């Protein structure tokens, strides 16, 4: 358990495709919902892929748009046009 990274997003309609994409791409992701907020935990590494969001959304998506719904995160970050990755390196 203490090796999770997490991402917390506002529980808004815009966040739904992002949440679905994370669940689809991370087998061990655990989604915790509370009013206003969704927190997703995942051991060691969590990836958000642009293509998966676009599939769920049915249109083009700019990964930096997560800035509109992001609440918090943990882990080291790697970010490019296609992937947003949170990871621990131990």
């Amino acid at each position: 358990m203490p090796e999770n990274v997490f991402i917390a997003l506002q529980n808004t309609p815009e966040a739904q495709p992002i949440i679905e994409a994370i669940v689809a791409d991370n087998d061990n992701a655990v989604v915790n919902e509370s009013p206003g907020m969704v927190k997703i935990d995942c051991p060691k590494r969590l990836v958000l892929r642009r293509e998966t969001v676009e599939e769920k959304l049915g249109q083009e998506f700019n990964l930096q748009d997560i800035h509109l719904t992001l609440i918090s995160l943990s882990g080291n970050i790697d970010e490019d046009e296609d992937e947003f990755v949170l990871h621990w390196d131990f």
Partner: protein
Amino acid sequence: MSNRKLNLKDKYRLLTRDLEWEYSYRDYEEIFKQESFEGIKITDWSKWEDPFRLTMDSYWKYQAEKEKKLYAIFDAFAQNNGQQNVTDARYVNAIKLFLTGVSPLEYQAYNGFAHVGRQFGGVGARVACQMQSLDELRHVQTQIHAMSHYNKHFDGFQEFPHMHDRVWYLSVPKSFFDDARSAGPFEFMVAIGFSFEYVLTNLLFVPFMSGAAYNGDMATVTFGFSAQSDEARHMTLGLEIIKFMLEQHEDNVPIVQRWINKWLWRGYRVLTLVAMMMDYMLPNKVMSWQESFEVYFEEAATSLFKDLARYGIEMPAYAATAIEEKEHLSHQAWSIFYNYGHAAAFHTWMPTDQEMDWLSEKYPNTFDKYYRPRYEKWREMEEAGERYYNPTLPMLCQTCQIPMGFTDMENPTLTSYRQSEYDGERYNFCSDGCKDIFDHEPEKYVQSWLPVHQIYQGNCGGAEMEDVLGEYYRINLGVDNLDFHGSPDEERWNAWHNLQPAEDKLKEAS
């Protein structure tokens, strides 16, 4: 000129590195005077890894969109008289505490990041700090706008910046930020960027905002999450600065470790206010302080420090004490505020039976044993018309400035009390953490502006309680302060909802 579409990395490089120039007629040391005096050794700023690579155009685009959404919700909240739909009027006291205690810290963060954003030789770090500085200014502004609506309907909001600079319990968060801003630029980044933003901010914002959501306060939820959406960038900057210092030179490791120890303890002490807010001030509870501490501190910090172990960084000193205190902290804090309810700019009260049961359930090892009997006694006194207010002034910890109300975890009925001597004077502390911080930099902490000392020295408006609380603090006496029961806030709330105060019901029945 080529038409090649630039990728994120290149775009961000053009915004940062490419804006830098060679200093030809001034010495580097002269331009970046504060970069070396703390002992931090930087050999190569080009190794700086940019956290989020947000260019100016996307930054403005996203921030504008966030603001648009936020103000639409503020308008809707005001038009629908949203203040009447919160769970009950006691809830509003949590956001009074937020506006007086936390929002001014956003302003301090704006100042602090604007300052350090000038001090670093690396342009990547400078740009990131300046963007954060803009964010923090936005945070304080949106918070004031959100709360200005509550100010029309409830007491205690009107003098928040004045109070922040003077009132005894607000000196706890204020002095924390003053302490950070009067440190060097690297220490400021460890204090605020890393310790406060990366490690502790989740314990502040997430409970406050979920608390607001559970209690029907959509305006606060929205400003909170809107601010918090910037926070992810701030957290990442905090983590990057630490890793950068640690990678630059091995001599930086012990300095950084000492700062981590110091600032996580300082920050944790400030969060005492959040602990009591969660357990006592929310009519609808989200989770207990203990639960939130376990998720956002124990679990998150354990992985973080495992990750930082490769640089030789260890779990912060005193983390064990904070963990031991988790079953006591909120109860001890609320007891202090209940004691001094006449001197606070918000209302206090004793928990209802149902709330006491919730506390027993959440704190099976401590609540019934140590705190319930005390509360039952206070409730008895209140019912007899003798609501307890402590007429004396408390001794304060020289470092964190909190009244000495914490107890020893080995014997939780004994006040935790430490002492140091410096230059022939005695200084008092609430904990080993606070004492060690003082002992390392006594020249700094002997200058602490301690509210109680200042009152006794005659610097706070006069010798009478009314002079200090009314004139000097600008608490509207009999209105902003005292118990929630019998307050004008309660009366207005009851009128809105056609509720009767309990006493009147009794009178009618008899």
